[in-house]
């Protein structure tokens, strides 16, 4: 059984979980608890796929867009389980899994070449492991905050709004330190070791800084200015869009040292 098979099986289980969640939205709330089973199963198989990819390729499973997106999808599911320790009746599950399914679909599309390539000299470093994984983990939590933000903006009641607001904050509180450490700081250390300069204002670096500013804005307006609520949710949404641009947009639309397309 190859890595691709495990990936596909994981994808199928995520779709099954999505189906369960869909049912739960139409008057059968208990199905959202059931959805956790195929979701967990998918996560396990996805983990196997990532491990296999690492073993077969001989390097970390995030050296091109296919691998990174696979890892990001995995991280979003993992983040969901971190958040879902209590049985909750929010719609976070269904919409987060929808996002995971979309991510997996793009990952498995022909847009993402899947060939295993040996590492170019610039990527031959243990910083590859630290920098990319911690950054993507942080972004997975930003994804949770994104969904929580959208759910806030479309919530039917004040009570639900409060729940989504708290969820969003919790997600950013976890994601922000991870993103700062992994994306900016580890990135700077690695750049210094590889290229001799910790910051060269290249598009990917700049956009990760822009993302950082947006989430810093989120924290400041919430904690100190009492903007919690609608504005907060919008900033969380904008932040994730910026993170997505940093991840995707820069690779395909802008050029620089960092374009590992």
């Amino acid at each position, binding site marked *: 059984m190859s890595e691709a098979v495990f990936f596909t099986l994981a994808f199928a289980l995520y779709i099954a979980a999505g189906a369960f969640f869909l049912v739960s939205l139409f008057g059968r709330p208990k199905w959202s608890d059931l959805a956790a089973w195929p979701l967990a199963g998918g996560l396990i198989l996805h983990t196997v796929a990532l491990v296999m990819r690492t073993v077969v390729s001989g390097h970390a499973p995030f050296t091109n867009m296919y691998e990174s997106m696979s890892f990001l999808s995995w991280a979003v599911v993992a983040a969901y389980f971190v958040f879902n320790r209590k049985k909750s009746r929010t719609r976070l599950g269904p919409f987060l899994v929808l996002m995971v399914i979309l991510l997996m679909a793009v990952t498995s599309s022909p847009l993402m070449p899947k060939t295993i390539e040996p590492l170019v*000299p610039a990527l031959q470093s243990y910083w590859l492991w630290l920098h990319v994984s911690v950054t993507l983990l942080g972004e997975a939590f930003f994804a949770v905050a994104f969904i929580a933000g959208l759910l806030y903006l479309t919530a039917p009641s004040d009570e639900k709004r409060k729940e989504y607001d708290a969820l969003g904050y919790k997600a950013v509180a976890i994601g922000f330190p991870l993103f700062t450490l992994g994306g900016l700081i580890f990135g700077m250390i690695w750049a210094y070791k590889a290229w001799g300069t910790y*910051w060269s204002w290249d*598009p990917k670096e*700049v956009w990760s800084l822009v993302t950082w*500013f*947006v989430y810093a804005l989120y924290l400041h307006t919430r904690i100190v200015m009492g903007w919690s609520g609608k504005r907060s949710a919008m900033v969380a949404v904008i932040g994730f869009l910026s993170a997505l641009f940093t991840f995707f947009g820069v690779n395909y639309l*802008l050029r620089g040292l960092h374009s590992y397309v």
Partner: protein
Amino acid sequence: MRRPMKTVWKFLASLKLAVALLILLAVGAAVGTLAPQGGRGVGYPSGRGSSSGIARALQLDHVYGSIWFMALLGLFSLNTIACTASRLPAKFRRTFGVPGDFDAASLQGAKARGSLGVSRAADEAAAACEAVLRGRGFRVFRKDDGAGVRLTGRKRRLGLFGSDLVHAGLLVVIVGGVVSGLGSRSWRLALIEGGRSSFASAGFSVRLDKFDTEYYPGGRVKDWKSRLTVMENGRTAAEGTVEVNRPLRYKGYDMYQSAYGKDWAATPLGIELRKGGAKPYARTVMVKPGTRVETGDAEFTSVTVRNFVPDFVVGDNRHVESRSDEPNNAAAFVEVRKGEAIVFSGWTFANYPGFRMKPQGKTEGKSADEDKDSLTVVLRKPAAVEYSVIEVRRDPGTPFIWAGCLFVVLGLGLAFYWRPAEVRLALKGVPGGTEIAAGANGSAGAESLNKELETIIGKIRSGE
């Protein structure tokens, strides 16, 4: 402070300014990625045109060094300093000073609440509560009066200063950036094996002893390895192998494997001279481009390579050019002399040994059945001498950057994971014992505060 100063200070210390600056910095930085930087952009037609003029006036071609971006960063620094300075002293006093008094009723509004009754007298109960709180890591303050005993316990107070540490870290990073901007220097050394480069200002020189390129089975580059020796005062001061991601450090200078190239000018080319007939002659002479080698031979006295291109193509202006640096179509313009007479003069192609081209571009065509007595000149497929590009950098700003980053990480850790908790116990003597009302507050979440309170109450009870 005088009024205008006070207004300025208030403005600088305001959060509204911080919010505005974060937005402006984010937008400004983003704009810089969309406009081509460095002035070589396609978007800037040289010369006139109102948009390119505006773009240049706004310094959109070098946003990150532009006046307005620097001004934003400067204002951001002032804002951070002012915000911290105006809030820190009071925060310090509030956190570490004696806490204010409270009454039992106020505990109703706490994030976590609890209560219990004990059979001991108020004084004894208070001592027991204090002990429990201390055992849980709280710093305890006590107030006794007619209404009873009130205890305030505080722990993880340092967490409140996480944000201040983050801000300090950011300022240190900005300082580091300024120091880098002013004081960093770099040099690119293109060295061939055995080559050496000196740094007069630093007093040492760098010599490349060996340069290797390793390849993957498919042909892609796997690694570049440069073995360097640093010489100072005539002696070897340091040596090491430099690869990408593995620089060599000497006296504050870092040496990086930056790139590599082919040095055709230093590459000896193999020129084969062959003559058949009665007196066969075969000899290969190694000649560097642009040089002449005396053969020491009576038959053909010297070989000169007038010109060499690794990837021959005749350009639009009918001049010989090289399409690339790779030896895809290596060609040499060779002159062979016998004494003073030139017996051969023309282009010879490594990939097409039988083809010869005259200097003016008139071809002689393939001479497959050449006269065995005539001279054949063949260029051997050349392998370039490679040079390694080592980038040497010295950046006095980096210690500040790493220190700043450390503060930021520690600060974030404190702010998000070292959450302060405050527990308040109001004890009132009642017939038969003491009633204790408890409340817990702090930036720690309601869940963990509840758990903490439950544990405390449990311990007080079990001490009964």
